């Protein structure tokens, strides 16, 4: 069961000028971080339930919180993608700096890029699947998004 009140409470507590400005003692900063982490944990469940209902399929939705250092266990475990992708936006190699940052957090060597857009209020769904060699190359297409 998802719940947004934990995050609301954590953000409410973090309205204190110390939390906003980072002028608190270290252990207080750690406590703010802990409350926020617990908050978004249960709020992500709520969003996942909403997406399942809106998209019509039950999924094990994953929010990769470390995408800013190219860490996402789900996609890394979902098999390799050839780096010689023609046509598409291609694959951008992950910089040594980012690899150093993420330490043992992930093992991907590149990021698959494609251009995407989402409606101002709503979501778009994109599927990345690996075709067998024999399949003709298809142009990337988006599954139609229900109008609402």
């Amino acid at each position: 069961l998802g719940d947004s009140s934990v995050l609301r409470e954590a953000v409410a507590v973090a309205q204190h000028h110390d939390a906003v400005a980072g002028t608190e003692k270290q252990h207080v900063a750690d406590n703010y971080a802990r409350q926020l982490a617990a908050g978004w944990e249960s709020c992500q469940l709520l969003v996942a339930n909403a997406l399942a209902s809106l998209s019509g399929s039950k999924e094990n939705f994953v929010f990769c919180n470390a995408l800013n250092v190219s860490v996402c266990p789900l996609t890394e475990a979902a098999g390799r993608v050839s780096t010689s992708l023609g046509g598409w936006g291609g694959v951008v190699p992950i910089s040594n700096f980012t690899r150093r940052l993420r330490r043992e957090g992930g093992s991907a060597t590149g990021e698959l890029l494609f251009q995407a857009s989402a409606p101002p209020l709503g979501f778009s769904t994109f599927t990345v699947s690996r075709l067998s060699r024999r399949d003709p190359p298809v142009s990337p297409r988006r599954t139609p998004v229900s109008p609402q």
Partner: protein
Amino acid sequence: PQEIQNEHVRVLFDPLTGHLKEIQNLDKSISLPVFQSFYWYNASIGNNESSQASGAYIFRPNSSEPIPVSGSKRVSTYLVKNALVQEVHQNFSSWCSQVVRLHAGQPYVELEWTVGPIPVADGWGKEIISRFETTLQTDARFYTDSNGRQILERRRDYRPTWNLSQTEPVAGNYYPVNSRIFIKDKKFQLTVLTDRSQGGSSIFDGSLELMVHRRLLYDDNRGVGEPLVELGADKQGLVVRGRHLLLLDTVESAADRHRLLAQELFMAPYAVLAPGGGPSYRRG
């Protein structure tokens, strides 16, 4: 790499130093020499003028001249180009790097900076800035937002509501930046959008700077009772990654761009992933 470009923007780099050199708005045929680099202010621990140290509540550099993070070395760079993105990776030091990125179809330059752990083995607290230098005749003025809404004009060493006798030439000219800071002359405007609140200023005409990270070794005696020296789980100094979006435009049309882009940045879409092929949510 000498340059990267997309439909709207071209960015030139200095082949000798590896730094950003010029930004061109191809839609408006505007070009502006822009030098950008990272520096650090040496945090004051108090001096004969005042015992005030730099700390969590107080920014007080011990000199007005920041030190270049890359020292006198060339910034090492490499280029990544494909159909959707063109980027130059810049290494300023072992703890400071940046990716200058142009996304296909986007009218702005994305600077993704990564700073930390800030080294303090030399016993000096450091306050890291990203500084832009241009040829804009800004006449001691710059502009910062207040909570993403009102834009306020700031004037160096001046306060509109009282006669300021400036005692801190740098810190006394720093202001809060919640979402954007810009400088302009009569024709052109350079706007920098931030992805979080930072301190910012324009310490000399044509320049603009934003503070991206700090690591201090003394308490500022304002109550918190410990230096601002946050450590990560590995007991190393924090590593921080963020983005600055640069927009070069005419003064007349700058607001059209930065207002909408700032909203997009503030309410960016969130990526959620799933293995796919899950059972139907509804029976039947």
